[in-house]
């Protein structure tokens, strides 16, 4: 180990996926004993960089040094052996196993017979947890613990495998404020023991509260690194979304006028609704208005959308449609009540093996046929949508799986357009689309709004909400924390609220 060398040093890192540049010329240093925050929008390059560090991506340009020595990971395993551990947003604990077994997963001590040394394992797990100040019985199954505690145990596991660098991806997104405090206490102890932490988060308050230094990413470039006491939230946001003309083609940097319609009749109302992933959400969707619900990953807006379509049950609160109470026991009840839903993943909406026309007709089958199916009618309806939405190739017979992603998304939308719903809930409607396809979605949603439908657009991408919504709710940790109605909104104000 060279004296004075940073714990981790990256020079000139570039990485592209099939011609699309994900990272270009990134120089990044991580000192021993620091908590280093990484911020940036989705697709800014921070996860790609972390996957390079953790050995997930092994082909890239540039060089990497750990404690002054050049390294080149061949796999995630060799990165782990070099002392790099990663805790993903989706925890990888085994819920049925005990805390001790999870902590020692893959490194269980064995006795002379090659069997698991249970007393030894308990002893070591107990010692490690005590050292980190995690107050939990190592014998209980980890699945019975709250999520925040599971996360602490997972961090303990990464440390037990000898990690000197721990990468945390969105560690606070699912935690309550007291749990966040416990996590921060643990992270400070880890730092004070000389190990380093990379803290990736959308929660700027959290990043500012725990990190020693913060690095901002934008469009695959490292924009700036600064020590925390010197900077604040607006400093970060400016660097995340960029200022000046280079971002103009993306729009949404300036003030956007909201075309809210406070006088329009309320179609769908939600009163103090709680369910898996969200709690005490109240909202009103109005006829002819697009209500955007923005929140970062895990903020609960996607869960809320599923509940509004009857996919998951509410545990509390009330729904009403046109002023009448609404109980959604199933998705078919929601559909019959006039609620339509397009989920964020196309695969969970479409039938890849079936022709286009059957994909379009499935949700209106009970309107066009009682007992017998009428394929001729289905094809004619589908043909109309294929032409109106510009679906390529324009054949209703083609197996859906052979269409491109953007065209599949249009088919997913088309199934709700024959008999217009009262409420249309769109979850991540423009995810993974190119600019042209996004504009078409905007056009379609506007057209639906003009016909008096109450549209809800739910997304983790601020651009999606800004380009579509007339009124915006911001969700954070399962609750609505701010509303933008009337007047104007800008992307930095939206990000600041989340």
């Amino acid at each position, binding site marked *: 180990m060279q004296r004075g060398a940073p714990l981790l040093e990256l020079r000139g890192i570039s990485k592209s996926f099939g011609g699309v540049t994900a990272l270009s010329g990134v120089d990044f240093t991580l000192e021993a004993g620091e908590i280093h925050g990484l911020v940036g929008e989705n697709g800014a390059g921070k996860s790609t960089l972390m996957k390079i560090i953790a050995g997930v991506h092994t082909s890239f340009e540039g060089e990497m040094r750990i404690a002054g020595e050049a390294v080149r990971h061949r796999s995630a395993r060799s990165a782990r052996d070099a002392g790099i551990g990663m805790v993903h947003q989706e925890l990888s604990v085994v819920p049925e196993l005990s805390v001790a077994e999870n902590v020692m997963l893959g490194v269980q001590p064995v006795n002379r017979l090659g069997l698991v040394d249970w007393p030894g394992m308990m002893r070591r797990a107990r010692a490690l947890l005590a050292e980190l100040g995690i107050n939990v019985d190592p014998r209980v199954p980890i699945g019975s613990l709250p999520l925040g505690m599971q996360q602490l145990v997972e961090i303990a596991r990464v440390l037990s495998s000898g990690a000197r660098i721990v990468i945390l991806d969105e560690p606070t997104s699912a935690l309550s404020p007291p749990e966040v405090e416990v996590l921060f206490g643990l992270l400070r102890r880890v730092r004070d023991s000389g190990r380093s932490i990379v803290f990736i988060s959308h929660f700027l308050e959290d990043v500012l509260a725990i990190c020693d230094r913060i690095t901002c990413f934008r469009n695959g470039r490292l924009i700036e690194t600064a020590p925390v006491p010197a900077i604040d939230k607006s400093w970060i946001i400016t660097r995340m979304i960029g200022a000046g003309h280079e971002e103009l083609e993306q729009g949404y940097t300036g003030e956007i006028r909201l075309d809210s319609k406070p006088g329009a009749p309320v179609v769908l109302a939600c009163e103090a609704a709680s369910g898996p992933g969200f709690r005490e959400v109240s909202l009103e969707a109005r006829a002819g208005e697009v209500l955007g619900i923005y929140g970062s990953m895990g903020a609960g807006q996607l869960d809320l959308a599923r509940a509004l379509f009857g996919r998951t049950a509410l545990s509390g609160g009330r729904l009403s449609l046109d002023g009448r109470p609404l109980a959604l026991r199933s998705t078919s009840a929601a559909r019959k009540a006039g609620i*339509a839903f397009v989920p964020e993943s196309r*695969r*969970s909406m479409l039938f890849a*093996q079936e022709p286009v026309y059957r994909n379009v007709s499935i*949700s209106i089958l009970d309107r066009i046929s009682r007992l017998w199916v009428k394929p001729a009618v289905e094809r004619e309806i589908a043909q109309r949508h294929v032409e109106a939405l510009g679906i390529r190739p324009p*054949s209703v*017979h083609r197996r859906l799986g052979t269409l491109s992603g953007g065209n599949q998304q249009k088919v997913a939308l088309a199934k709700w357009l024959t008999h217009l719903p009262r409420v249309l809930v769109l979850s991540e409607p423009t995810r993974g689309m190119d600019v042209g396809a996004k504009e078409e979605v905007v056009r379609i949603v506007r057209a639906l709004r003009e016909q008096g439908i109450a549209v809800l657009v739910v997304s983790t991408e601020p651009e999606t909400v800004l380009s579509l919504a007339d009124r915006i709710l911001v969700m954070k940790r399962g609750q609505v924390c701010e509303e933008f109605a009337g007047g104007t909104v800008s992307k930095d104000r939206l990000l600041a609220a989340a």
Partner: protein
Amino acid sequence: MSTSDSAVLPRSGGMGWLKGQLRNIAPFATLLVLVALFSIASPSFATLDNVANIARQVSVTAIIAVGLTFVILCAEIDLSVASVANAVGIMVAFFTLQDESVNIANIPLPGFAAILLALLGSLALGAVTAFGVTVIGIPSFIMTLAMLQIGAGICAMLVRGQIAYNVPAPIEMLGSGSIGPVPWIVVVAVLVLALGHVVLSYTRFGRYVYMVGGNREAAEYSGVNVKLVLAAVLIISAVCSGIAGMLGVAHFGSAQQDEFDNYLLDAISAVVVGGTSLFGGQGGIGNTVVGLLVLGVLNNGLDHVRIDSFLKILIRGLILLLALVINVYAQRLRAQA
């Protein structure tokens, strides 16, 4: 029209289409090869009499397999079909006047009442399975395993080790009578197969069955009442088994415990050998018919060529294994095509 027709085919053209159709072509080719083999090996195989034999031999399996096709198309399974058939067959005998020699504490009722009660019995057994799977959420594999045991229990309780012989006259006729040269049971099997085909191919419910099997989550997100569809197919399966059980008892000439034991494997084999996907959403009654004929020809043909009867059992197992391999491969090829 020619442009849209050609658009149906994937880019790879003919080969891609063949790959997509493998699950339909393979069973049919198997059938042709078996028929050719047995025709050469035995002069008594390819006779009109023997064709009638094969048809009669697969009739009971056919009626059970129709219901099972619905269940498997939904990517579920029903292991209770043979047991339910046995139980319902015994029920109809239980409600019929038996000879003095039969020592069963039965409840003789008029024929139509006995038939009605037995049908209601099959409906009730199907409803219990449907409740367990859709409302409680027990996987169908386990739920129908329990129902298999329950059906066996009902059989045991009703006949208590005895054998009953009499069934109501209409059942007697349909199970063992003939209309001219054609056995009634073959007519019933053909009708049930035809009805199953019409329901699956031309009705809204049939479409829902395919969609639920093809992508259950997408069906849910399209506002299809998935649980209702699953409940319906499980009840259809039980009722088909019930009909097969009643006719089967008349066909065999007796109602007793364990007399349908072979039919579970036969019915599943027929559906799967025919090429209906175990992953749901692909296949249909047409496939089941081919599967039934493959099994019927195989069982019957092996008798004609005087093969070691113990080897026969092994051969059936191997054929089933082969069909499963083709089934899984067909799924993979279709996903690629």
